[in-house]
C-alpha cells in the first residue's frame, strides 16, 4: 500500500472503508491487461459493497482476461479532507492507483441524490466534470443503473449511459474500445459514435435537444443518420444461464447488506402505479429453484456468510416460492444459515411462511399498505384490502408478535385529508385487532410504527406526469396525520423529510438544463445528499436560483400528456400508451390485475427474453 495513503488512514474514521485487500478481490497483472475500469459507487463503501448489481458487473467485466475492473467509493468527508491536504487523488480500491489513469470510469446511479457525489468524485479524481472538456487522454465516463432511465440531468457529465441490464453490454463496450486501441484508431469521438450503435447505449452528446418557449422539450434529434432515434434497454434473456458471481468480495467492516443476496427473479407482476422498478425491470424473468439452490450453496461455500436473503421486488410472487424455500431449508437449518425474505406482500403472509423464515421468526413484521383508504389503494393499484392487512396482522400477533411496522406514502395523486385520516384509522384498527385475539402475546401491548414517505413522480410510471405536492401541502398533511393520531399511545409515527423528496423529484423528472444546477451545487460544496447531516435544502435552493432554474417546473408541475418527456429518448419496454392507459384507470379508480391473472399489454414482452408470464408475440 502506498505510504501516503497509509499515513492518512491512521487518522480517519473507519479506515477499513478505504484499505481494500478483501478476500476475493480481483488483482491482475497490469502488464497483461488492455483496459482498466474503475467501477464507482457514488456513496460510502458500506452502501456500495451491498449492491448486487456492482457485484455482478465486477464479475462480468473481470471475466474478460484483457480487462481489470476495480472498485471505488465516495470517501467520507474526513477522508476527503485528508486526501485533498495530501494531494492524493481518488484511487481504486484494489491497486490504489488514481482512477484518472484508467480507461473507463463507470458510475452506478442508484438514486438521484447521489448526483452531487458523482461530481465530487470526478473532481477528487482530477477529471474534468464536463464531457466536452475531456479529451482523448481522459477515461471514458459511463453511467448506468436505475437513474440512467432518465439520465438527462447528468447528461453533460457523462460520455455514455448503459441502459437496462449491463451484464453483456458493458463487456461489448470495453471490447469495442480494446479493438480500436489495438488497431490504433481510437479517438473518443469515433469510439462514442460506434458505441451509440451498440444496442442499449445512449451517448447524449450525439443528440440535439430542442426546447419550446415554455421550457418543455420540443424534440430529440440524433446528429447522424446511423444513430438510433430511441435507445432500447438491454435485458438478460435467460436468468438461469446468465452470469452469476460465484465468489463475492468479502468486506471486513460491516456493510449495510452483509450477507448473500440471492436474486430470485427480475421484474414485477404487480404494476403499482407509483413504482419505477416495477415497470423498468419488466418483463418478469425467473430463475428456477434448481439454479437458485445451486447458486446459494455455491455462495455459502465461497463466502462463508451465514445469512441468505431472497431478493426480488415482491418475493412471494415467485411462482415456485414453496419449492424454493423447501429446497433451501433442507440444508440451511442444519448448517445454521439464516434465510430471510424481505418484501413480503400482505396478501401472501401466511402462518406457514412465517414458520419457515428466520427473519420473520426473529425480527419485526413490516407491511406496506401504501395508502390509508381502499379508494386510494385502488388508485395506486396496490391490490390489497383492509381485511388482508387484518388477517396478516392476526397471523403475526397469534404467533407471538406484538410489533408491526406499516409503510405509507403521502402526496399520492387524488389524495385528500380523508385518505390521510385513513392511515390513522387503519393503524388504530390494527391495534384493536390485537385486543380481540384471545391468544395474543400475554402481558404485551401492540406497537404499531407507521412510516410515511413522500410520493415522488418517477419516469416510466403511470404517475410520471403527476405533480408532487408542494412542501407546504406535504407538511400540512403530516401535521394532519399527527393530529389524527393524538392520544393513540400504541402508534408511533415517523415521516420522511419533504425537502429531500422535493430535490429528488426535481432530478427524477429533470432535463439537461439541470446540469448547470448540479455544477453550481458542486461549487457550493453540496455532496452526500442522501445523508441528513449533509443535506441542505437552502443550499440547493441557492444553487437553483443562481442558475435561474425553477425547481417547481420539474417537481410540482403536471406534465402534459402530449409533452415530449426528457426520457422519451429511452425505450424501457413498457410503452407510453400503456402508462397513459394506467394513468386514466387510476383516475377512474380502476385496478389492473397482475401479470399472473392476465396480460395488460404493457409492451415489455417486445424485448423478448425467457419470460414467466408474458404471452408470446
Amino acid at each position: 500500500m502506498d505510504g501516503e495513503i497509509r499515513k492518512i488512514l491512521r487518522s480517519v474514521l473507519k479506515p477499513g472503508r478505504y484499505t481494500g485487500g478483501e478476500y476475493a478481490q480481483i488483482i491482475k497483472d497490469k502488464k497483461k491487461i488492455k483496459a482498466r475500469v474503475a467501477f464507482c459507487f457514488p456513496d460510502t463503501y458500506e452502501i456500495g459493497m451491498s449492491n448486487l448489481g456492482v457485484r455482478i458487473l465486477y464479475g462480468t467485466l473481470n471475466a474478460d482476461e484483457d480487462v481489470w475492473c476495480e472498485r471505488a467509493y465516495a470517501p467520507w468527508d474526513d477522508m476527503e479532507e485528508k486526501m485533498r491536504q495530501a494531494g492524493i487523488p481518488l484511487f481504486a480500491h484494489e491497486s490504489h492507483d488514481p482512477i484518472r489513469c484508467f480507461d473507463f470510469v463507470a458510475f452506478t446511479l442508484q438514486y438521484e441524490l447521489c448526483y452531487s457525489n458523482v461530481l465530487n468524485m470526478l473532481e477528487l479524481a482530477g477529471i474534468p466534470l464536463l464531457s466536452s472538456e475531456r479529451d482523448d487522454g481522459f477515461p471514458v465516463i459511463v453511467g448506468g443503473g436505475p437513474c440512467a432511465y432518465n439520465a438527462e440531468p447528468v447528461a453533460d457529465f457523462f460520455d455514455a449511459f448503459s441502459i437496462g441490464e449491463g451484464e453483456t453490454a458493458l463487456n461489448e463496450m470495453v471490447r469495442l474500445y480494446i479493438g480500436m486501441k489495438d488497431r490504433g484508431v481510437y479517438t473518443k469521438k469515433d469510439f462514442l459514435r460506434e458505441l451509440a450503435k451498440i444496442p442499449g447505449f445512449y451517448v447524449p452528446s450525439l443528440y440535439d435537444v430542442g426546447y419550446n418557449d415554455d421550457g418543455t422539450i420540443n424534440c430529440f434529434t440524433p446528429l447522424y443518420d446511423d444513430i438510433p432515434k430511441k435507445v432500447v434497454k438491454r435485458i438478460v434473456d435467460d436468468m438461469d444461464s446468465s452470469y452469476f458471481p460465484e465468489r463475492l468480495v468479502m468486506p471486513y467492516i460491516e456493510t449495510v447488506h452483509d450477507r448473500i443476496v440471492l436474486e430470485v427473479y427480475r421484474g414485477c407482476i404487480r404494476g403499482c402505479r407509483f413504482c419505477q422498478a416495477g415497470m423498468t425491470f419488466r418483463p418478469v424473468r425467473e430463475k428456477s429453484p434448481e439454479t437458485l439452490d445451486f447458486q446459494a450453496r455455491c455462495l455459502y461455500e465461497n463466502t462463508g456468510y451465514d445469512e441468505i436473503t431472497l431478493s426480488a421486488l415482491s418475493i412471494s410472487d415467485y411462482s415456485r416460492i414453496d419449492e424454493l424455500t423447501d429446497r433451501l431449508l433442507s440444508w440451511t437449518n442444519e448448517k445454521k444459515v439464516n434465510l430471510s425474505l424481505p418484501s413480503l406482500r400482505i396478501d401472501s403472509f401466511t402462518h406457514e411462511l412465517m414458520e419457515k423464515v428466520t427473519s420473520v421468526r426473529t425480527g419485526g413484521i413490516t407491511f406496506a399498505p401504501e395508502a390509508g383508504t381502499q379508494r386510494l389503494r385502488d388508485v395506486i393499484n396496490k391490490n390489497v384490502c383492509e381485511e388482508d392487512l387484518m388477517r396478516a396482522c392476526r397471523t403475526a400477533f397469534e404467533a407471538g408478535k406484538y410489533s408491526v411496522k406499516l409503510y405509507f406514502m403521502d402526496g399520492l395523486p387524488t389524495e385528500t385529508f380523508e385518505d390521510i385520516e385513513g392511515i390513522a384509522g387503519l393503524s388504530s384498527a390494527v391495534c384493536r385487532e390485537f385486543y380481540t385475539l384471545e391468544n395474543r402475546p400475554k402481558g404485551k401491548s401492540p406497537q404499531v410504527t407507521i412510516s410515511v414517505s413522500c410520493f415522488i413522480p418517477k419516469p416510466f410510471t403511470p404517475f410520471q406526469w403527476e405533480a408532487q405536492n408542494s412542501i407546504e401541502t406535504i407538511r400540512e398533511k403530516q401535521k394532519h396525520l399527527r393530529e389524527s393520531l393524538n392520544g393513540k399511545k400504541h402508534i408511533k409515527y415517523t415521516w420522511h423529510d419533504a425537502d429531500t423528496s422535493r430535490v429528488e423529484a426535481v432530478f427524477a423528472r429533470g432535463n439537461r438544463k439541470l446540469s448547470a444546477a448540479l455544477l453550481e451545487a458542486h461549487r457550493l460544496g453540496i455532496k452526500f445528499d442522501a445523508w441528513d447531516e449533509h443535506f441542505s435544502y437552502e443550499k440547493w435552493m441557492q444553487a437553483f436560483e443562481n442558475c435561474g432554474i425553477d425547481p417547481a417546473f420539474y417537481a410540482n408541475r403536471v406534465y402534459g400528456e402530449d409533452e415530449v418527456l426528457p426520457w422519451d429518448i429511452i425505450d424501457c419496454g413498457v410503452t407510453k400508451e400503456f402508462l397513459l392507459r394506467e394513468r386514466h384507470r387510476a383516475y377512474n379508480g380502476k385496478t389492473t390485475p397482475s401479470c399472473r391473472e392476465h396480460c395488460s399489454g404493457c409492451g415489455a414482452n417486445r424485448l423478448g427474453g425467457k419470460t414467466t408470464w408474458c404471452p408470446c408475440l
Partner: protein
Amino acid sequence: MVPMPVRVKFIKIDELQFISHLDLGRTMKSVMIRAGIPVHYTEGFNPHPKIVFALPLSVGAESVCEYMDFRTDREMDYTEIKDRLNAALPPQLRVLEAYEPVDEVSEICLAEYRITSDTPADFSPLSASTIVVHKRTKKGYIDTDIKPMIKYYSVDGDSITAVLSASPAEFLNPEYIAGILSLTNYTILRTRVFTSRGEFR
C-alpha cells in the same frame, strides 16, 4: 467426541492493520465456513462459533504473532487446518501454524514490538527515570508512570524494539511509546508474545 482444541498463529499485516478486533472476529467466522472447519458452536439460545483471540491488537499496528483459539467438532490434522485456513484467507492474514494449545491465554504478560519511524527519531525521552502519561485505565483516564511497564528496549537506527507489559492487569499500548517519542509517521509491528516462562505457545 470431545471438541478438539486448536490454537492458530497468524499474521495481520499491510491493509489488515486497519481492521478492528471486532471486524476480525466477524471475518474469522466466515473464514471458518469457507475453510470447511467444523468449529464448535456455543450452546444456548443463539449458538455461534466460539473463537477467542489471545491479545487484541490496536488498529494501525501490524503483527506476525496473532493467536486465536477455537475447538473443532471432529478430530482434524493440524496441518490440514492450517492449509484449509490459508486457502480461505487473504495473504495479509496468513496462518503460520496450527497446534494444540500449551499455555493459557491468561498467562500472557509481555509483548514485543518493533516501532519504526519514517523520519530520524530521538529516543532519549525513554531513558528518563519516570515517564508519566495520561493513560486510559479501568478507572478512566489517569496520570500513570509507564516506565515500569517498559521492560526492555533497544534502538537500531530509527527503529526501536521494546518489550511491554501485556497482562490484563497491566497493559501498555505501543502507541504510547510513539507518543512519548513524538513520532508522526511510523509503523508498529508486534513480533513476539510471552508468558512468564517464555514465548507464548
